[in-house]
């Protein structure tokens, strides 16, 4: 039996292999090079953590990191309740206009950065004073729609009997929300949180359209840093930055999956 499943796994791995090779070639293996650049001097000698220390003392890099992290954190933090409220609203109050409301939520994601930038330039000339909170607002407008879609379809998937049983047992609306709906939504919440996190980095596009390659410090994001370092061919800084970011990300994800395993909700 064990042997059989092993044979099957090999067969399934054959399906995975072509795509996975692509991932390895274009995304994973070049990281060897990135590591090497991060740890070696220009004379190909081992440099230790020199480059890491240097970038973490670099003001531009700290700016870029803190702006990007603030944007990602607060963007995700505010977008989830907003999306939850909106999708509950769609579920409860609109019987025949659901598709309209859902399309309204997702349309901003399809509006190109160029268009958004034009709009901001001509209608909100004071936008550059908002800085980081301006970017968070932009993010909420643009990408909350994805979370709405994900949460809405999760809401639809809650079995009607469960809700009815709770109501029969005397649960009020608030209790229904807290004890039935939210636990059912938890996996979808986590997933849409991840998607929101991923999308928060895309606000760079609008900022790039508005302020070009060298914006004021409030709008300076990771992409600006990496892009400018690539132009000046400062590979050791970029590599050290990339290695730090990837390591932090892997640790965060492992923690998330670990806590999920313990609470019994699977992410995979």
């Amino acid at each position, binding site marked *: 039996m064990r042997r059989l499943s092993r044979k*099957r796994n090999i067969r*399934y*791995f054959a*399906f*995975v*292999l*072509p*795509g*996975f090779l*692509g*991932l390895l070639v274009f*995304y*994973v293996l*070049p990281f060897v*090079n*990135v590591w090497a650049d991060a740890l070696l001097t220009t004379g190909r000698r081992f440099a230790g953590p020199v480059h890491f220390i240097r970038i973490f003392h670099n003001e531009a890099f700290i700016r870029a990191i803190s702006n*990007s992290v603030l944007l990602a954190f607060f963007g995700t933090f505010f977008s989830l309740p907003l999306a939850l409220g909106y999708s509950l609203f769609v579920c409860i109050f*609109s019987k025949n206009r659901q*598709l*309209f409301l*859902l*399309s*309204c939520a*997702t*349309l*901003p994601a399809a*509006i*190109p*950065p*160029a*268009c958004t*930038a*034009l*709009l901001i*330039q001509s209608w909100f000339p004071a936008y550059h004073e908002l800085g980081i909170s301006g970017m968070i607002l932009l993010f909420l*407008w643009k990408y909350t729609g994805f979370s709405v*879609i994900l949460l*809405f*379809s*999760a809401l639809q998937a809650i079995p009607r009997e469960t809700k009815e049983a709770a109501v029969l047992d005397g649960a009020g609306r608030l209790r229904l929300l807290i004890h039935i709906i939210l636990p059912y939504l938890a996996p*979808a919440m986590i*997933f*849409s949180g991840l998607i929101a996190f*991923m999308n928060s*980095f*895309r606000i760079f*596009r609008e900022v*790039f*359209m508005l302020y070009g390659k060298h914006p004021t410090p409030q709008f300076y*994001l*990771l*992409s600006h840093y*990496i*892009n400018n370092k690539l132009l000046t061919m400062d590979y050791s800084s970029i*590599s050290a930055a*990339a290695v730090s*970011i*990837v390591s932090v*990300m892997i640790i965060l994800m492992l923690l998330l999956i670990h806590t999920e395993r313990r609470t019994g909700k699977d*992410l995979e």
Partner: protein
Amino acid sequence: MCRIVRIAVNVVFISAAVLSAGPLVWVIYASLIPAENITQASLGPELVSEWKFLHLSLGQYRSVLLESSDYLIRFWNSVLLVFPVIIGQPAAAVLTSYGLSRGRGRLFSVILFMYLIIMLLPYQVTVIPNYYSMRYLHLLDTNYSIWLPGIFAPFSVYLLTRYMKRIPSEIIEAAEIDGAGDRMILLRVILPSCKGVLAALSVLVLIDYWNQVEIPIVMFRNAFRYPLSVFLSSIHNEYIDIAFAATAIYVAPLIFVFLFGTEYIDQMEP
């Protein structure tokens, strides 16, 4: 009480419509203003306060489309860069996701974890390994530098695998008992139920790549190769008088596809 609720509901409806469709309507309207009435300062509220907003013309479109080839070249650059990716990424993901969703054991979870991590990394980080591999393969400044990383990007694989794992295993086991091989199961059982998701993925990838900025500005040194999404930023700063027509033409394909694809996106389950 009931009336207050109804008013509140309508307020949400109207503000949702204005917030989402408003910018588009405004860009299309502004693209019809004759170029001489447009200056950076007079675009917004001031235009409305004077009576200039009643003069409409197609002058902007004429200068964008007919008087110079710059814009059209970038438009076709964009189409050429995006098309292989929106077909290729979901198509390549079908095989990979099938294997990942059916295989059991540590190896498969590790691979899926890798896909998750790389999906979550910002483009500005993943563009670095992409750049190295393209430099190594001497493909910088060619369209392959967008196509290849795009086709193998983890987004479609991760989402499709999640979706395929939800297909009840009884159906697949039944097909296996009837003697269906992998190819048969994939073509006759899995693919038909994934049609909607594949369409949704194509739309999402299109939205993402049509608006791509991060990768082209790193991969292309030759500004002639830039897609429209990057080129528009220079239009805004230098030729504000035709920027609206340029943007309107740029949005059109996206909105067209979005209106078609929205029902698929709405059905997409997490």
